[in-house]
């Protein structure tokens, strides 16, 4: 059963058609990634799923419900968690308190929230940093903090927006291994937006390629990556002759 279904979704900003008639779905148990060159509309798609923007046309169905015209907090309450490309921790609070923010979605008791947050942070190997202020932390920690906060909301689907961007490759791969273990947390599916192909190839079992708002390919990573239209989208038509036939 598809957990998330995107049906003919389009979104235009003024004169720019950011997302054009995109259709795909994410099944339970999948790790799907959206890839594509810059400006392809990937983050816009995420924003549409979480109702930060509303689609001009098309429907988005999550867990059987039509969420096309929801609100971001409504989407979160339904079980869609997300991280942001530009990390925004609560600087004046500690790492633990930051994650408690996410845990508070399901409880109003600070004690319970603290327990939950501790569990999540331990999973992400951040126990030592729990009581440090979020201000002044380095990027790898902050990226994990984003994930921790989203995890604490006990989402069914977690959307990771360029979660390894800016990390050195060793860091990125370490994080990728952790991400592979996310299903242990009861997360049914993961959607990611990524540029770092090393990570995508390592953990995705399904990828969707966007270019200029249009979905140009989808399928298993190894297979999609070799398709001519995908290579052309990234490298331009000049390299057509180098492509496998």
């Amino acid at each position, binding site marked *: 059963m598809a957990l998330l279904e995107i049906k003919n979704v389009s979104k235009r900003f003024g004169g720019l058609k950011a997302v054009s008639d995109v259709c795909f779905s994410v099944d339970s148990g999948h790790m799907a990634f959206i890839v594509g060159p*810059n400006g392809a509309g990937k983050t816009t798609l995420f924003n549409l799923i*979480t109702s*930060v923007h509303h689609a001009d046309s098309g429907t988005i169905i999550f867990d059987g419900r039509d969420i096309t015209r929801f*609100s*971001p*907090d409504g989407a*979160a*309450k339904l079980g869609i*968690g*997300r991280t*942001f*490309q*530009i*990390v*925004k*921790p*609560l*600087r*004046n*609070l500690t790492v633990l*308190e930051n994650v*408690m*923010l*996410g845990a*508070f*979605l399901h*409880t*109003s008791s*600070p004690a319970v*929230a603290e327990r939950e947050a501790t569990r999540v942070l331990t999973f992400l190997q*951040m126990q*030592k*940093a729990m009581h*440090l*202020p979020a*201000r*002044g*932390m*380095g*990027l*790898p*920690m*902050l990226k994990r903090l984003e994930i921790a*906060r*989203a995890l604490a*909301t006990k989402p069914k689907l977690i959307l990771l927006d*360029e979660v390894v*961007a*800016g990390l*050195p490759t*060793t*860091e990125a791969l370490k994080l990728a291994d952790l991400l592979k273990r996310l299903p242990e947390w009861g997360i049914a599916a993961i959607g990611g937006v990524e*540029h770092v192909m090393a990570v995508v190839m390592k953990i995705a079992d399904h990828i969707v390629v966007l270019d200029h708002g249009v979905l140009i390919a989808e399928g298993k990573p190894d297979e999609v990556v070799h398709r001519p239209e995908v290579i052309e989208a990234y490298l331009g038509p000049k390299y057509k002759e180098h492509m496998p036939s």
Partner: protein
Amino acid sequence: MSRNLQAAIAGAIVGIALLLPAFLHTDYTLQIIFRIFLFAALGLAWNWVGGYSGQLSLGHAAYFGAGAYGLALFARAGLPPWPAVGCAVILSMIFAALIGKVSFRLRGPYFALCTIAFAEVLRLTAKNLPNVTGGDVGMQVPALFKYSTTQSFYYASVLLTALAVALTYWIERARFGYSLMAIREDEDTALSVGINTPRTKLYALLLSAALTAIGGALYASMFLYIVPDQVLAMEVSTEVAIVAMLGGAGTLLGPLVGAITLESAAEIFKAWFQEAHLLIYGILIIVVVLFLPEGIVGTISRKLAVFKAAPIPPFTEKPRPGAKAETTRAAVLK
């Protein structure tokens, strides 16, 4: 400075204040300390909206005035004093709901200006409706305490501050407080963890308006007479905001420290610089904003935090001072 340490200090100050009347006999001194604690309570109430959720209101005089005029008007309509205060609080909350609905949609300076506009509309309306409010001539306010000595009001203001401190302490620990702080930091992040930001902001404002109104009613009753330019003036709004910011917006102890500092300074200025005291007050505001933007408590907390410098966690990256670094890297690596 940890929350518990701040609460302990606040508690000590309140405790001392409760004992002081035994040693102080001049009405004048009691009145000064009354003012200190009144503005401390008002500052703490403002803090919930301005400090913790980052919605910097410059129109809190609207709620203060609603409390004052509410008491006067409902009492004149026949209600006994304390129920009239209750109704005044409700009136203030109704104003808050209206003001919030319009203002919260606005960003940055527009929000502040809108709050000012609402407060000014109320002030001018009070001035222009002499049949209702007595206009510039003013209105009588009933006495809230049987023996309306300055002492009763003194204790009332200290207790109001204690209430505000207790509420702030609870808020800081509870889910509500986390939601407020998330909203201050970034509303989109708050939304992404399921916080209903408009509703949360409104609740903070309603609570703030309620406490401010009680303060207004108290103040009005102490003088037994009010005029619009006294309780609905922009000066009240700015003083409340400055008390909180001087002490440290978003901290528990801040407004209390701010109120003590500001009121004492004002008294000293009045004594030394009779005619130029507003000039000095203005300069004080400038100095505070330029040199102590985090307020007294905020600055102290930051300096103390240096001692808690942490061991580097086992990751390849060293912690960097400030998060500006990753945005540049992320932009470069795209």
